[in-house]
């Protein structure tokens, strides 16, 4: 409700009063940037479950600046149940082995760090109501700057649960989309004008992107536990999305009231719209405490949630795609320019990162008259951030 008003006022101001946001970089004192951060979740889906322990870092820094807290003995306890000690699989990343979260059971984490005892409050896994459907509309949205509307795909979710299910929700999503290259290379040159299907195809990749906004919902004010038309991701055709198939995996986490309040407060502080009536940013406390020194600020949250998932595919939105033309032209090697050294030069180029786009040969001839080469940026999808491994859920 606040949101509606805020949004309305924003639009009003944009329209009538010509208000706007201008970049402004205030000087921020880098103070004590070493708060302990615990990020973990246990669900009713099979594990392993992961707990990340890091330190907070400078506002002006990058994610890799975060110090990883290693060497902890970290356990997850089930209330009136087993205790499992997690294994540090990477620096600062701890994973369970056997533990299976159960709906209705409560869990907490316990660890010791620098002589202080830390633990989370007990968190119960609530069941998450089933997802009815995930659907989308192609929509054009106004941005904060007049005249720069953007078109994209707006995803929505409907879910319907009983009042026994949790009534607060947090949504996570992950995009997967297939990308190609401008000059695909299907063959390897084996010499003497012979082509073989390539052993290392680089023409089809998959890209992944997880969300960057907090997305929560509640049915607290409704008489039924019904989420209807709740907005999820808004995805534009950038980064070659929608040229080929696109997939979105939606995860619906059931939250208890405290965790919902935590995320809501984070959202208000972190995703301010820039309106006249923004709430003051606040210091949001999670559910992990230093028992030895209770005043210490521990960041993060250990959450226990029932999860529902739904994956959907989009195949037919090529209109939205923003295809990037490859700016590097094809290069052609002619046999007559090199004579006997042609193949040597050609192999050299191929080893040097060029891809074979095509071989020029006369009819019936086994001697190539030339080779068309493409730069790797135009033929290797991994150069565009793609992953060559086809996801298991991907069918052609």
């Amino acid at each position, binding site marked *: 409700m606040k949101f509606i008003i805020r949004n309305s006022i924003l639009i009003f101001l944009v329209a009538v009063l010509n208000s706007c946001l201008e970049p402004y970089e205030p000087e921020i004192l880098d103070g004590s940037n070493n708060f302990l*951060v615990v990020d973990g979740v246990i669900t009713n889906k099979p594990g392993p479950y992961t707990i990340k322990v890091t330190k907070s870092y400078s506002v002006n820094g990058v994610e890799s600046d975060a110090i990883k807290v290693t060497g902890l003995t970290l356990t997850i306890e089930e209330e009136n149940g087993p205790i499992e000690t997690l294994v540090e699989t990477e620096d600062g990343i701890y994973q369970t082995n056997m533990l299976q979260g159960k709906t209705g059971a409560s869990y907490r984490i316990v660890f010791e760090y620098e002589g202080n005892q830390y633990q989370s409050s007990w968190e119960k896994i609530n069941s998450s109501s089933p997802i009815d459907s995930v659907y989308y509309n192609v929509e054009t949205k106004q941005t904060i700057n007049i005249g720069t509307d953007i078109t994209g795909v707006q995803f929505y979710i409907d879910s319907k649960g009983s009042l026994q299910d949790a009534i607060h929700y947090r949504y996570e999503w992950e995009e997967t989309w297939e990308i190609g290259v401008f000059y695909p290379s299907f063959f390897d040159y084996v010499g003497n004008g012979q082509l073989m299907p390539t052993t290392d195809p680089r023409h089809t990749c998959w890209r992944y992107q997880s969300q960057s906004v907090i997305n929560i919902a509640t049915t607290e004010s409704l008489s039924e536990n019904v989420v209807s038309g709740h907005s999820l991701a808004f995805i534009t055709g950038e980064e070659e999305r929608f040229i080929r198939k696109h997939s979105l995996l939606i995860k619906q986490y059931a939250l208890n009231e405290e965790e919902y309040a935590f995320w809501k407060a984070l959202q208000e502080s972190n995703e301010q719209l820039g309106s006249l*009536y923004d709430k003051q940013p606040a210091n949001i406390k999670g559910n992990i405490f230093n028992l030895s020194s209770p005043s210490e600020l521990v960041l993060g949250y250990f959450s226990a949630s029932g999860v529902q998932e739904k994956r959907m595919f989009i195949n037919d939105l090529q209109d939205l795609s923003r295809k990037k033309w490859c700016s590097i032209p094809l290069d052609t090697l002619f046999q007559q320019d090199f004579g006997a050294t042609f193949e040597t030069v050609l192999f050299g180029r191929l080893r040097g990162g060029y891809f074979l786009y095509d071989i020029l040969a006369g009819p019936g001839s086994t001697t190539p008259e030339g080779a068309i080469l493409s730069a790797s940026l135009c033929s290797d999808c991994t150069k565009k951030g793609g992953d060559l491994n086809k996801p298991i859920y991907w069918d052609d």
Partner: protein
Amino acid sequence: MKRTLLFLVVFCFSFTQVMSQKGQLYSGNYKQTLFIDLVTDLENSYHIKFYFNPELDSTKIDIVFDKVDLNSLLKKLSEKTNTIFFVKNDNTIIGTGEFVIIPQLDEGLFGRPQIVKPSSSDERRSILENIREKAIIDKEVYLENRVIEIGEASKRFNGETAIISGFVKEAKTGEPLVGATVFKKNPLVGIATDQFGYYSFLLPKGKFEIEVNSVGMKSTKRQVILYSDGELNFELRDGIVSLKEVVVTAERNNVDNLQTGFASLNMKNIKQIPSAMGEADIMKIALTLPGVQTVGEGATGFNVRGGGADQNLVLLNDVPVYNTNHLFGFISVFNPDVIAGADLYKSGIGAQYGGRISSVFDVALRDGNKKKFGFKGAISPITAKLMVEGPIKKDTSSYILGVRSTYSDWVFSILEDPALRNSSASFFDVVGKVNHSINDKNELIFSAYYAQDKFKLNTDSLYEYASGNAALQWRHIFSNRLNATSSISYANYNYKLSTSEKSLEAFELDYNINHYAVKSEFNYLTKNNTSIKFGASSILYQLQPGEKRPVGSTSLVTPVSLLNEKGIESAIFVGSEYDINTRLSIYGGFRLSMFNSLGSSQSFAYETDRPKEERFITDTIQYSNNELIKTYVGPELRLSARYKLRDDISVKLSYDRMNQYIHMLSNTAAFSPTDTWRLSGIDIKPQIGNQYSLGFYKTFFGTSIELSVEGYYKTLNNVLEYKDGAELLLNEALETDVINARGKTYGVEFLLKKNSGKLTGWLSYTYARSLIQANGVYPTEQINNGEYYPSNFDKPHTVVLLSNYKFNRRVNLSTTFNYSTGRPATYPISRYGLKNQSILLYTNRNQYRIPDYIRVDLALNIEGNHKVHKKIHGSWSLSVYNLLGRSNAYSVIFRNEGGQINGYKLTVFKSAIPTITYHFKLQ
């Protein structure tokens, strides 16, 4: 006294006669002839020339005269036109309307009436105006020099002192002049008129001079011989009419009066000052005074000496206004055409005021013109307004009514963007007042206002809010020692939000507050000339803090209705101003306020030794209807003292204690439209303010320049602060989200003010701090580790320069310059990753400041030409808000964009905003 006045009138008329031209005889026969044609004919036929009020032009006349002298002709014409004609130089005839010209009889004393030689017939009107002014001046000079006897001579030896009382009014409209000073010099004894223009004070018997001053009015004086108690009424004229003659003497200036932290804003003087929407706005002018600040452009309300916006008692005709804003705070609800002015008390607050802890902003409505009908209006690109006024019965009762509306709907409709074309935002307000004098001793006043705002966006959410009040006041003069004003009043504020964007979640949400009050206030003048003000008041609050309902058959919204709140705020008060000697005066006031929180209601009991959090609720306590839930009693002492070091230098001290039982809840930097007023109760304690103030005042060049330096220190108890992430709307257990915090504010205010001359205005500098401490027992009740931190409106340095330059009587140019330190803000200090997202960590509140604020405005006012417009006068005002086009930051926000944290400043006005307004009036 009455006999004296009557005598005066007769006396004046007896001088009225017509001088005739010798020899010439006149003949004529006119039927249903326009006066202008008749005159033209006469001018063509005889060697005479007429000058008269153009209003006469279209008067139709039947007249027959045959060989009569000029004297007889003019007598006849006088009868037909109700105009007195005056002959100058045998052939120049001047119609003076109802104005009397005193001829040469007392030449030595008054001087000859001067007549300006006409250069062309177009200048008839301006010549006439000069004559009129001269006539007025002469009449005034006459009145000022004549000795008036007050009381009965036979009682002259009964005691040594007597009371003079009476009304001070505006001569043209009969409107009472509020705050006019009536005084006698050597030794100085003076008093200010009350809100009815009434004054009453004790003076030694004998012969002396009484003077009257009022801002913007020409001052006058009377020679009196005081025999016994009696009346003396004054009519003052607009000081602007006769520019050259007038030396504007300020009202009882800062050196003389007793209050610290007081400012009086007279609507007459501030209309020329520029504003964002081309609308003179008394609240925006108040913001240029030292010690008065705002959170930012478009922010609702104002902050006085570091207090919250809900801590100001804003009164319209003595009834509180719960929401003073139109259009998100860009315009106030006070229609400038209908209000007379406003008094702002930052300290030195009289005992008759109470209920808010920071200031009193007392806005007075004008009285309607008791003599004749008039209207006034204006059109600007955003608003249109009209005011009408006039007598219901001449000299006895009058009305005034003003309406205003916006047509920004229209602005939306011409926008190209299809989404915005379907949006709308609008407001209107109506305000009016009726005065009726039953007799000399009794007057009834009814006033009311209603203001409404609405906006609807392309989305289907509609937002409406409305505020209104009405009051019936009865003014009774028991004797010239005792008078009383009693009133019953009602005030309301409500808002409604509805949205139907998603049919399953469609809802309406209402908020409503009702305020019913009775009040009686008495003024008593003791035998030793001490005036005592005492009285009592009681307010019944009934408020519905929030009700949410589903809309439509498909909506699944659960209805939520918070329990109504009810409370009674009562007070008795007494205050007296006492002159110990000519140098030292003191004011002492005492107010005993009481608040009763009443059922039906419920409250929650919490585990002892636990913070008030929902999980620690142990029990719900029910209260039946009108059951007493909680009582708070607050004694409030108000003290002021002024010591005059010299006639032009004084030092003042004051102490104020105030209690506040109704609070605005808001955890946004500026008030948002969904913020609500809530009453004190078991857990929400009354806010208490204590203020100590010390001031130094000096005037220069008479009183034309005033300098004041005021310092203050204020403590605020039980101010409401909010826990991190507090939810204030539809919150049943509000005490779980609020903290009873404490505040301290202090500062020094410098003000240099020029009151007269072509250039007027003021320059002020304020150093002010406003700090808050939330230091509860439990960590969740502590903010910034329980240490003092700057409040949202802590702006240490403020400079305002406001100037108004009058080029001539038709053109003036005013400019304002504003500088203030940026307000405090909370910036992130660190980041961390959580669930694949980068989260910003904000810890200590308000440790940073947004960039400083600088704004320059300009307004040019051009009065229409009186020669061209006859009855309806037009004028133009052209204003440019934010002339420099500076992008002042309203707030600074941070966004995570692709892992990179970017800072932005939100700017409300990015460029200069020009507005042109056309004003018209009939007068």
